[in-house]
C-alpha cells in the first residue's frame, strides 16, 4: 500500500493523520481503562493476577494470562498515548514517554538512563532491535547461576513464538546512511556487518522509533499484547504507581510469606500524587516494572531478602559513543535507527576477560545527540552545524561477567523513588577506551573527515593515526568519559537456589509465594544484546508455567490462529 493512500501530511507538526489508531478504537469498543484522563480509580480491585508494568515482560504476561481465562489487571505508572500523540518531536517524547521526564540518571549523575514510562514501557520508545539471547550468555547463566535448563536450545521455541507474534525479521530495506557508515567501516577493517532483526510491520522508515511510532508499525506492547489482553477483558490502570505490597506477617522461622495486597497511588504525569490510594487484592502478583522500578517496589515493601541480593547486580550495558563528520550528507535522523551491528568485539576475548562491546548506531536527532555530544560555545556550535554530515556509532559494554563488573544497586531516595547507584570503575573505563579506539578506526575506514569520541577532553581528530595516539593518551575517568544507557537489567536476578538469586528460574520470588518477577530485572548479568527479545521470551516461558500453576491451562504467546 502506498503510504500516501492513508495519510494527510499536515506539515511541520509531525502528526500524521489518517492512520488507524488501535488505542482509540479499543477505547471506543469498551476497553476497561481507568486512571488519569480515563476516570478515577475505585478504592479497591480484586482480580486473579495483578501485573505491575505494561512493557516487554508485562505485555507478554498479560496477553497469555488473559488467554488462559484469568482475570488480569495491568498497572502502569505512565500515561496511555497512541500514534495520534506521537508527533515525532523530542520535546514531547522525552517528557511524556520516558522515566523521570527523560531526566533519569544514575545516582552520581554520571550516566543518563533512557527508559520508557508509558503504556508499552520501553517497547514504545526503543529502536526496534531484536536479538535472540546470545548462546554464550545463557551458557554463563547455566554455569554460574545454575540456570542450565535455560540453554539456547531450550529457549528456541520461546524465541520462535516471540518472533512470530511480533513480526520480528531481518531489516530488508536499505540501511540509512548512518548505518551504511558502520557497514562500510566494518567491511573495510575486515569485520562482518550483519543486518539487524526488527519488530516492525509495514514500517515507513521514518526514524522516529525512539519518539513513539506514529504509524503503529513497530510491534510494541502498546499495539500488540496490551490491546490483545484488553480485548480479552483485562483491565488497565494508567497513571497509577505501585507503591508497596502489604505482606503477611512473618510466620515462625520461615522466610516464606505472601503478598496480601498491593497499594497503588494515582499520580499526575510528573509523578505527583493525584487522589486517594487504591488497594489491589490478587491471587498472584507479577512485578514487571523494569529493572529499576521492580527492585524498588520490593524494597519499599520490605520484601524478605535473606541473602542481601535485592536491587544488587543491576546492569546497564554502559554505552559510549563516537561521532564522525562524513564528507557526504548522512541525515542520521532519517530511516530505521538500527539496521547493522557487530558482535565481533564481544567474541574476540574470553567472556569474563576484558569487557566486550557490541557496535550499533544511534539516531541523530538534535536533542539526543547534541545534548550528549559534548562541547560548549564555539565548539558546540561547530558540531551542531555539522549535524547533517554527522554519523554516530555506539559501543555497548557487556557488563556483569567479570569479578570487577558487579553492576550497580537500586536504592530508595527519601521520598521512596528509586535511584540506581552505578559506580564507573577502571574496568569499565578501560572498555570505554577500547570501544572508542575501535569506533574511530571503523569511522575513518568508512571515510570520516573527522572523529570525535564522546569524552570531555577529546578533540575532533583528522586521521586514524591522530585519533589512536590521542585516545591512548586520554585520561579515562568517570564524568569526563561520556556514558549513557538505554538497557537496564538485573536487580531481581534469577538463580537455581535462593542464595544466588531473588527469583526462581520460573520467575517466582524465592520467599514470596504469590509474587513473580517477569522483566529484565531477572537477568543475572547483562545480555550483550538489546534486551527486548530476551525479556519477551523469558516472560513467555515464565508465564506459560504460571498459567499452568494457577489454573492448569496451557498457553502460548503465539498460536496458529494468529497467523
Amino acid at each position, binding site marked *: 500500500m502506498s503510504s500516501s493512500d492513508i495519510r494527510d501530511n499536515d506539515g511541520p507538526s509531525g502528526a500524521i493523520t489518517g492512520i488507524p489508531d488501535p488505542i482509540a478504537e479499543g477505547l471506543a469498543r469498551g476497553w476497561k481503562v481507568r486512571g488519569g484522563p480515563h476516570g478515577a480509580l475505585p478504592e479497591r480491585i480484586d482480580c486473579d493476577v495483578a501485573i505491575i508494568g505494561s512493557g516487554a515482560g508485562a505485555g507478554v504476561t498479560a496477553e497469555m494470562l488473559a488467554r488462559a481465562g484469568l482475570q488480569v489487571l495491568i498497572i502502569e505508572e505512565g500515561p496511555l498515548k497512541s500514534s495520534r500523540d506521537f508527533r515525532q518531536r523530542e520535546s514531547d517524547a522525552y517528557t511524556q514517554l520516558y522515566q523521570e521526564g527523560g531526566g533519569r540518571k544514575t545516582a552520581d549523575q554520571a550516566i543518563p538512563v533512557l527508559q520508557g514510562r508509558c503504556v508499552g514501557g520501553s517497547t514504545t520508545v526503543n529502536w526496534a532491535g531484536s536479538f535472540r539471547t546470545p548462546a554464550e550468555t545463557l551458557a554463563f547463566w547455566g554455569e554460574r547461576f545454575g540456570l542450565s535448563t535455560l540453554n539456547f536450545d531450550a529457549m528456541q521455541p520461546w524465541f520462535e513464538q516471540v518472533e512470530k507474534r511480533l513480526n520480528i525479521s531481518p531489516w530488508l530495506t536499505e540501511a540509512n546512511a548512518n548505518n551504511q557508515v558502520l557497514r562500510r567501516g566494518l567491511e573495510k577493517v575486515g569485520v562482518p556487518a550483519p543486518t539487524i532483526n526488527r519488530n516492525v510491520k509495514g514500517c515507513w522508515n521514518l526514524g522516529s522509533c525512539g519518539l513513539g511510532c506514529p504509524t503503529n508499525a513497530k510491534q510494541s506492547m502498546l499495539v500488540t499484547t496490551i490491546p490483545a489482553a484488553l480485548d480479552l477483558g483485562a483491565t488497565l490502570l494508567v497513571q497509577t504507581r505501585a507503591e508497596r505490597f502489604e505482606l503477611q506477617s512473618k510466620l515462625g522461622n520461615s522466610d516464606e510469606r505472601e503478598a496480601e495486597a498491593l497499594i497503588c497511588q494515582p499520580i499526575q504525569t510528573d509523578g505527583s500524587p493525584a487522589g486517594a490510594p487504591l488497594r489491589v487484592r490478587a491471587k498472584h502478583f507479577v512485578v514487571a516494572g523494569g529493572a529499576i522500578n521492580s527492585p524498588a517496589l520490593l524494597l519499599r515493601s520490605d520484601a524478605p531478602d535473606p541473602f542481601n541480593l535485592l536491587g544488587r547486580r543491576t546492569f546497564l550495558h554502559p554505552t559510549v559513543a563516537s561521532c564522525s563528520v562524513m564528507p557526504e550528507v548522512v541525515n542520521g535522523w532519517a530511516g530505521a535507527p538500527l539496521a547493522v551491528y557487530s558482535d565481533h568485539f564481544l567474541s574476540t576475548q574470553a567472556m569474563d576477560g576484558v569487557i566486550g562491546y557490541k557496535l550499533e548506531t544511534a539516531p541523530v536527532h538534535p536533542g539526543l545527540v547534541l545534548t550528549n555530544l559534548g562541547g*560548549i*560555545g564555539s565548539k558546540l556550535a561547530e558540531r551542531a552545524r555539522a549535524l547533517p554530515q554527522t554519523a554516530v556509532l555506539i559501543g555497548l559494554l557487556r557488563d556483569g561477567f567479570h569479578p570487577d563488573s558487579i553492576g550497580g544497586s537500586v*536504592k530508595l531516595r527519601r521520598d521512596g523513588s528509586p535511584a540506581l547507584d552505578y559506580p564507573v570503575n577502571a574496568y569499565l573505563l578501560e572498555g570505554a577506551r577500547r570501544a572508542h579506539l575501535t569506533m574511530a578506526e571503523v569511522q575513518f575506514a568508512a571515510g570520516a573527515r573527522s572523529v570525535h569520541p564522546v569524552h570531555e577532553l577529546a578533540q575532533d581528530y583528522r586521521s586514524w593515526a591522530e585519533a589512536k595516539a590521542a585516545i591512548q593518551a586520554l585520561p579515562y575517568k568517570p564524568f569526563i568519559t561520556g556514558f549513557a544507557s538505554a538497557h537496564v537489567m538485573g536487580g531481581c536476578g534469577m538463580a537455581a537456589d535462593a542464595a544466588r538469586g531473588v527469583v526462581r528460574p520460573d520467575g517466582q520470588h524465592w520467599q514470596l509465594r504469590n509474587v513473580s518477577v517477569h522483566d529484565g530485572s531477572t537477568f543475572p548479568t547483562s545480555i550483550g544484546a538489546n534486551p527486548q527479545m530476551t525479556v519477551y521470551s523469558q516472560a513467555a516461558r515464565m508465564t506459560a508455567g504460571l498459567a499452568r500453576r494457577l489454573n492448569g491451562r496451557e498457553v502460548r504467546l503465539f498460536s496458529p490462529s494468529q497467523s
Partner: protein
Amino acid sequence: MNATPMSSPASMQRRRFLKLGLGATALLAVAGAGTALLSKPGLIEGRLSAPSRQLMRAITVAVCGDLLPPEGPAREARLARHMDQLDRQIAGFPPALRGDLGQLLTLLGTAPGRLGLMGLRSPWAEASAAEVQARLQVMGHSSLALRQQVFHALRDLNCLVFFNDPASWALVGYPGPRTN
C-alpha cells in the same frame, strides 16, 4: 524499610561539597540547613525564580554561543522563549528531580555558592559570556564529581531544551519530523 534511605543527589552534592573543602566559612553556612532562609529559592512552584532565570540566561549564552541570534531584540526574544521552555521541561520532571535542581539553583544563586561551585567571581547579571564559558570549561574537565554534576546539570538541560526547539532546527540543518 530494609533499605537505608539514600540521600538525594542534591544532599549528596552538598555533603561532598563540604568534604571537598572548596568554600569559605560563609559557604558552609549557606550549604547547611539554612539555605532556604538565607537565599532566594531557585525554583518557585516548579518554575525558575527571577534570579534563576538570570543565572540560566548566562549559562545559555555561554553554552549556545553564536547559535543564538546576535545581541539585540532577536536574541532577547529567543532567550525569553528558551526560559519558558526550560520551565516546561522542569515541570515535567518528577518532584525529587525538581527538588534537586531547585537546591542546586538556590545554591548557585548565592555569591558563595557561585564562587565555591563554579569559581565564578562576577554576579550572574554581570558575568561576561567568556567568563562563564571559561568556568564551565574548567568544570567540564574537572575530575571532581561535584563540579561535573553541576556542569552537566546546567549544560545538558540547556542543550536538550535548545535543540528540541523547532526555532533551532534550521541552524543545525534538521528538517523536523518526517511524514513520508
